[in-house]
C-alpha cells in the first residue's frame, strides 16, 4: 500500500469521524429557548406572508397545520440556488452560486467515481464505447459532473477571492479566510490541470479509487494526479475545522432554531426536557442571581427576599 493510499484512508475516516462528532455534539446540546424567525415555510397557508399558528384564536385547541412540501421547496431553493444571497447580496451571488453549484456537481462526481470504481472492479468497462447503458451513463456523468464541478468551483472561487479583497468583505476578512479560498482553488485548479492533461475521462482517478475500495496496490499515477489527490487529502483533514463546513451546521440553524416552532404541550416531550433543564446548576456571578442551586430555584426563590410591596 502506498503512502498516498494510506493518506486517503486516513483522510476519509478522519473527515467522517470529526464531522460526525461535531454534529453529535451539537445535537446533544440541551433544549434551548425558542428563537423562531419568520417566515417559517412549513406554516401551511401562512408561509407566503410569514404568519404563524399564533394568529389563530385559541391556537392550542386546533390541529397544527404543517406543509412539509412548502418546507422542502424552500430548502431546495436555498440549497440549490442560494436564494438568500440572491435576494440580499447579488454581487456576491454571481460568484457564490457557481462556486456552490460546482461543489454540488463534485458531490455527484464523487458518487459517480465511486460507482464507476465498483463497476470496474466487477469487470465492467467504464468508457464512452461500453456496451452497457449504465457504464456509458457513469462515464458521461463522471466527465460532465467532474469538469463542470471543477471549472465552476474554480471560477466561483476566483470571484469570491477577489470579492473578499474589496469593500465590506475585505474589512471582515482575516488570513484564514483567504487561505481557505486559496486552498479550495488549489484543489480545483490542480484537478483541472490533471483532467485537461493526463486524465480526460477521470479513468486514472477512478483506478485509484478502485484500488482503495478493493484494498489493492495502486498502479503508478502521474505527478499531476498525485498532487491533486494529496491536496484533496489535506483538505479533508482541514475542512471540518473551518466555517467551510457550514453545510452541516445549516441543518441545525434552520431546522432546530429558525424554523423550530413546536409548542410545549403539557405532559409532552418538550416539557420533560424543560423540567430537566430547570434542574441544571447555575453558577453565574452577578449579585442578582442566586447561584449554586438549580435554575428553578434561582428563578423562583427571589420572591421571598426581594418582594417589597
Amino acid at each position, binding site marked *: 500500500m502506498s503512502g498516498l493510499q494510506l493518506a486517503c484512508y486516513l483522510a476519509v475516516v478522519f473527515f467522517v469521524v470529526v464531522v460526525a462528532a461535531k454534529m453529535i455534539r451539537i445535537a446533544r446540546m440541551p433544549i434551548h429557548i425558542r428563537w423562531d424567525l419568520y417566515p417559517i415555510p412549513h406554516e401551511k397557508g401562512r408561509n407566503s406572508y410569514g*404568519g404563524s399558528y399564533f394568529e389563530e384564536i385559541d391556537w392550542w385547541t386546533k390541529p397544527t397545520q404543517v406543509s412539509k412540501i412548502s418546507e422542502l421547496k424552500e430548502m431546495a431553493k436555498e440549497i440549490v440556488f442560494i436564494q438568500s444571497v440572491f435576494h440580499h447580496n447579488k454581487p456576491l451571488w454571481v460568484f457564490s452560486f457557481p462556486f456552490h453549484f460546482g461543489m454540488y456537481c463534485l458531490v455527484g462526481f464523487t458518487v459517480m467515481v465511486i460507482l464507476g470504481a465498483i463497476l470496474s472492479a466487477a469487470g465492467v468497462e467504464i468508457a464512452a464505447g461500453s456496451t452497457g447503458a449504465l457504464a456509458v451513463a457513469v462515464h458521461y456523468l463522471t466527465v460532465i459532473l467532474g469538469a463542470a464541478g471543477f471549472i465552476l468551483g474554480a471560477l466561483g472561487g476566483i470571484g469570491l477571492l477577489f470579492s473578499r479583497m474589496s469593500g465590506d468583505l475585505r474589512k471582515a476578512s482575516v488570513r484564514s479566510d483567504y487561505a481557505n479560498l486559496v486552498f479550495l482553488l488549489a484543489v480545483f485548479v490542480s484537478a483541472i490541470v490533471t483532467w485537461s492533461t493526463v486524465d480526460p475521462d477521470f479513468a486514472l482517478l477512478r483506478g485509484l479509487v478502485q484500488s482503495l475500495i478493493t484494498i489493492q496496490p495502486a498502479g503508478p499515477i502521474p505527478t499531476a494526479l498525485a498532487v491533486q489527490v494529496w491536496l484533496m487529502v489535506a483538505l479533508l483533514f482541514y475542512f471540518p475545522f473551518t466555517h467551510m463546513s457550514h453545510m452541516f451546521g445549516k441543518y441545525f440553524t434552520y431546522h432546530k432554531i429558525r424554523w423550530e416552532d413546536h409548542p410545549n404541550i403539557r405532559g409532552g416531550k418538550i416539557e420533560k426536557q424543560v423540567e430537566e433543564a430547570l434542574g441544571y446548576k447555575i453558577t453565574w456571578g452577578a449579585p442578582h442571581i442566586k447561584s449554586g442551586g438549580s435554575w428553578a430555584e434561582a*428563578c423562583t426563590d427571589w420572591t421571598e427576599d426581594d418582594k417589597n410591596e
Partner: protein
Amino acid sequence: MSKKETSFKDFCKQEGQLVEIDPSRFPPLPPPYDKLELEPKFRKLSEENQKKLECDLDGISAFKFPRPQTDEEKRELVEKFLNGLRKLYDREDNWTFLQPLFLSMEYCAKCQTCAAACPIYRESGNMDIYRPTFRSDILRRLYKKYIKPGGKFFARISGNDIEASWTMIARLMELAYRCTICRRCAQTCPIGVDNGLLTRELRKIFSQEMGIAVEPLHAKGSVNQLKVGSSTGMSRTPYLDNVEFLEDEVEERTGMKFRWPMDKAGADVLLIHNAGEYLAWPENPEAFAIILEAAGINYTLSSELCAYDGVNYGVWYDDVQFAKVALQHATVAKKLGVKKIVIGECGHAHKALTVIADRVFAGDFNIPRESSMTLLRDIVVNGRIKLDASRNDDITTTLHDPCNLVRLMGVVKPQRDVLRAVSNHFREMEPHGVYNYCCGGGSGFAITQDLNFPDFRHNISSRAKLRQILDVFQDIIGPEHKKYVCAPCSNCKGAIRDMLAAYGVFERCNILYGGLVELVVNAMVDIEKPFLEWEWH
C-alpha cells in the same frame, strides 16, 4: 465619523474615543426632511461625563459605567468578562441558548450579506463598528483565543489574534447597545447565523456575570418590576387608583359606566398590559376595556405583583431576570385559574410570554398564552361590536409592525384585518410584515433616555422607520392631511413618539401615532363622541 476604516486593532488598542458620528454622512431623508438643518442635533457628553464615564466607542454612553481607576480594577473586569464568556459555553449555565450560540459562533462565513439588512449600519452611513458582524467577530475572536483549547496558538496563525484589554471590553459593552436585536440580519443570512442573538449573549455576560446592565432595563426595569410590581415604579395601590381614575375617564368620554374586572378568579382571560400604557397612553387600556366590555368577554386584569405589567426586559439582556418575571406572570394566572393569558399591545411582552417562555414553563405554569391581536380580530370579524369605518375617514393610516410580533412570532395578519375593518384609508409601508424595519427603540433603546443615547436613537436607529413613515405619506405629507401611524406596541410607540417629536413631524406634517384599539373604539357606532383626540401626546 472619520472616513478612515475602523479596524479590530484600533478597536482594541486605540486610546480615546474611537469614532466620531458625522451626521453629514447619514443617507438623506425624504421631504420635508431633506435638509440637514432640520435634523435633530447630536449632543456631545459634557467634559465631566467624558472623563467620568466609559464612552470611548462613539462618544455615547448607554451604560453610564464609571471608568475604573486602577489597573487592578481593569484586570478584574477583564477576568470577569472572560469568566462570563466561558459560562456562555457551559451546558448548564447557558442551556437556554448554548446551541444557537455555538452555531452562530462557529459557522459565519463573513459574507456580509447581513450588513445591507441592518438599518443601524446603513443609516449611520455604513460605520464599520455598527456592521452586524463587527461585534460578533470580536466576541468570536475572544472565544477562539481565550476559551477554545490551543486558542492562543491558532489565533496567531489564523490572523484572528486579539488582546483582551479593558479598553476593548468597555467598547464592546457599549457596542452591545448599538443593535436593536431586530434580527433582520439573521433573516437574510444564508447560513442561519444570528448576529442579533450574539448581541444578546454579549449583554448576558455583562449582566449575568459582571452585574453590569443598562439602568432602565435592570435596576429601574426588571429589578423594580420584581420588587414593586412594575418597571414604571407603580406599585399595587397607585395602580388600582389609576384604574379607578381611568374608569371615570371612560365614563366621561363615552358615557359607558362600568367597573374594570380586577383579580376575578375563574375568568376566561387574564389581560396583561404594558404598565407604561396606564401612565403614558391611558387611552389604550381604556379602549381595550371598552371593546372587551362591549363584546362581553369574560376577562380580568390583575393587581398582583408583576401581573399588571406585561413587560419582561430580561428578554433583552438577562435569561434569569427573564425567567423570574415570566414565572411570576404564570403564577398569577395559575392562582386566578384563568383559561388563558392575553397580552395587550406590547411587542416584546408578546414574544417573552408566548414564544420564549414556552421553554421555561412546565406543569401548571404552562397556561395558554395568546396575542390580543387575534382576540381583537375575533371580536371585529365576528361582529361582536358594531363598527363604522367611515368614522375614521378623515385619517389616513399606516401600520408599523413591531419586530417581536411579526418577524419573531409570525403574528402578521390579525392586526391588518382589524385595521382594514376600521380604516378605509389604510396604506402599507414598504417593506412591511416580517420584513419590516424596527422602530429604532427595540431591545431597550426606547426606554434608555439618559445622557445622549436618545440622540443615537433619533438620528440613527429610528431613521429607517422615519424614512418609511415619510415615504408612505409622501403624496399627502402637508399638515392639511391627518395621518396616523398605528403602532400596536408600547415600546414602538415610545420610540416613534420621541422620534416624531425630535423632528417636529406632528407640527410639520400632521402625523400622529397611537395604538390599534384606539382606532377601533373611534369606529364604534355606539360611542357618540370621537374617541381619538387629535393632539400631540
